[in-house]
Each structure stands twice: as structure tokens, then as C-alpha cells.
């Protein structure tokens, strides 16, 4: 069975590879087209050479008027090849614009794919905390700009946990109790800290579930706040 997990960094790496290959392919196509353009279009001398060949091959083309006509033919050919040169430049500029568009489109496409993958992951992961703001004045914790009111004790607990997280520390129950109550950790009981954690979970979890899942509509009742079509009962 294949690994069901995908990593965002892997997607990003393969995505940038695709971008590199794609841009390289576009540049190769552009250079090839430019070379083809500059080598296949006839140069100014092609018309003159043709007229010269006609002049040599036909022995009876000797009268002055005929020769004058041939010269005029060659001149008009040369004028036309000047026009071709300017066309070639215009085509080349358009080619560059087109390839710039191609490159931009490719980059956006890859970005879109990567974003889609990321979105799918986020959707599967459920709630992802992108901001945690602890406001001591209001006794409120803001998770992703959703405010949850907490008791003073729970506020103390979450503040201590947040500080420990910022220092990359793991707290035991006793240490937590010690930090909150201001006593020495060795004098504290593990159970006291566990109780604080339980109260914090209860208070915060209740409100999060109320906000995200079980809505309370004032004076009317309760309702699940999920889409109808995602519900399945086995």
C-alpha cells in the first residue's frame, strides 16, 4: 500500500523541478524558433541570385529593354526582402512575448497545483492554529481570531504553557503547578497540574466545539455547523 501521507516540502521540490524543466523547454523552443526564423527566410541576395541565374541561362536575353526589366525585377525583390526583414523582427518580438506568457502561465499553473495540495491538507487536518493571542486584560484567548473567554486560573495555565512553548520546553504537572502558584516545583503535586490542564481543556474545548461544531442559536436551539453532504452514518 502506498504511503498515504504527502509532504508539502516534497510537493514544492517536485513543483520547482517541473518549473525548471518547463522553462528550459520553453527557452529551447524559443531559441529553435528564432534560429529557424533567421535561417529559413530568404536573404536580400536570394532575389538577385535568381535574376542573375535567369540572365545567364537565357542566351537570347540580350536586348537593353529586357535587361532593364530584369534589373527592375531584382530591385523589387530586394525591396520585398527588406520588408521581410522587418516582418522577421516583428515575429521575433511576438515570439518573445508569447514565450514570456507561456512561462508565466506555467509558473502560475504549478503554484495553483501546490496551493491546491496545501488546501487539501489543511482541510484534512481540521483546525490549524495560525495565530494564538492571549489577552490578559480581557481574560480572552484568540485562536485564529476567534475569541474564547477563560477563567483567571485557565488564563494563568495557558500563559504558562505558551511561555514554555516559546522556550521549547515541556512541563510536567508539578512544574506547571509550581509556575502558576509560585511555589517550588518539588513541593507541588503532579495531580494539581493535571487538574489545571483538565480545566483548561474543558473550558477551551467546550467553547471551540461550540464555535466550530455545535452551534447555539439564541432562543431557538442547537444545530451542527457542518455541511449536510459531509455527514455519513454507518
Amino acid at each position, binding site marked *: 500500500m502506498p504511503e498515504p501521507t504527502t509532504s508539502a516540502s516534497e510537493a514544492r521540490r517536485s513543483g520547482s523541478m517541473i518549473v525548471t524543466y518547463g522553462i528550459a523547454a520553453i527557452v529551447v523552443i524559443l531559441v529553435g524558433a528564432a534560429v529557424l526564423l533567421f535561417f529559413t527566410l530568404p536573404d536580400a541576395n536570394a532575389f538577385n541570385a535568381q*535574376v*542573375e541565374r535567369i*540572365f*545567364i541561362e537565357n542566351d537570347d536575353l*540580350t536586348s*537593353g529593354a529586357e535587361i532593364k526589366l*530584369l*534589373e527592375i525585377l531584382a*530591385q523589387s525583390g530586394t525591396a520585398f526582402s527588406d520588408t521581410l526583414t522587418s516582418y522577421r523582427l516583428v515575429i521575433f518580438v511576438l515570439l518573445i512575448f508569447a514565450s514570456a506568457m507561456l512561462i508565466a502561465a506555467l509558473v502560475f499553473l504549478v503554484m495553483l497545483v501546490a496551493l491546491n495540495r496545501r488546501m487539501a491538507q489543511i482541510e484534512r487536518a481540521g483546525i490549524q492554529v495560525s495565530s494564538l493571542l492571549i489577552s490578559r486584560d480581557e481574560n480572552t484567548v484568540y485562536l485564529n481570531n476567534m475569541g474564547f473567554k477563560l477563567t483567571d486560573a485557565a488564563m494563568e495555565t495557558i500563559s504558562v504553557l505558551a511561555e514554555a512553548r516559546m522556550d521549547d520546553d515541556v512541563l510536567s504537572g508539578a512544574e506547571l503547578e509550581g509556575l502558576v502558584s509560585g511555589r517550588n516545583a518539588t513541593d507541588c503535586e503532579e495531580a494539581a497540574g493535571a487538574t489545571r490542564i483538565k480545566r483548561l481543556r474543558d473550558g477551551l474545548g467546550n467553547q471551540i466545539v461550540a464555535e466550530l461544531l455545535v452551534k447555539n442559536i439564541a432562543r431557538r436551539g442547537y444545530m451542527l455547523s457542518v455541511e449536510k453532504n459531509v455527514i455519513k452514518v454507518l
Partner: protein
Amino acid sequence: MISICAVSLLLAGPAAAECYADYKAKQDNPLRLHYGVAQIQGECSAAAAKAELQQRLGRAGWTLLNVLNVFGPEGLASRKDSAGTYYLRF
């Protein structure tokens, strides 16, 4: 005997019947073409006329394309009109 022969040959060259050639020449940038008739001093053959005319035309900035015919004075009249200003010019 040999030297006498050689001298007589040298003398005989120019003394032989007058030789003419008609040719086609060009100038590049812008392309200009002309048909002309010229007198040949050397041997009266197309190859010799080519070598001789190449030099003469080159001095005037023209490139010889080809020599059509070599002929005697009897052919001059019929080519005079076509050659126009380049009749016996080079």
C-alpha cells in the same frame, strides 16, 4: 628553325582576322546587368576571351558572368543594337 616558328606564331596572332566576343556581366548592390561586345586581342577562343574579359571588366568594377560566342567582324552588325552603350566599350 623553332625560334623562327615561334616568332611567326607571335606575329600571326594579332595579324589574324579580328576577333570579337559577346558576353554578359553584372554589378552587385544594386544588381546591374549588361550585355556587351568586346574585341579580343589574344587567341580567338571562348576560354581565352573569358580570361581576358574577366580582367578588363574587373578593372571597371564589373563581374563577367559568361561569354556567349566568339566571332569575326561579320557578326558585329547583328549585335550592335542589343549591346547598346556596351558595344565595344571594354
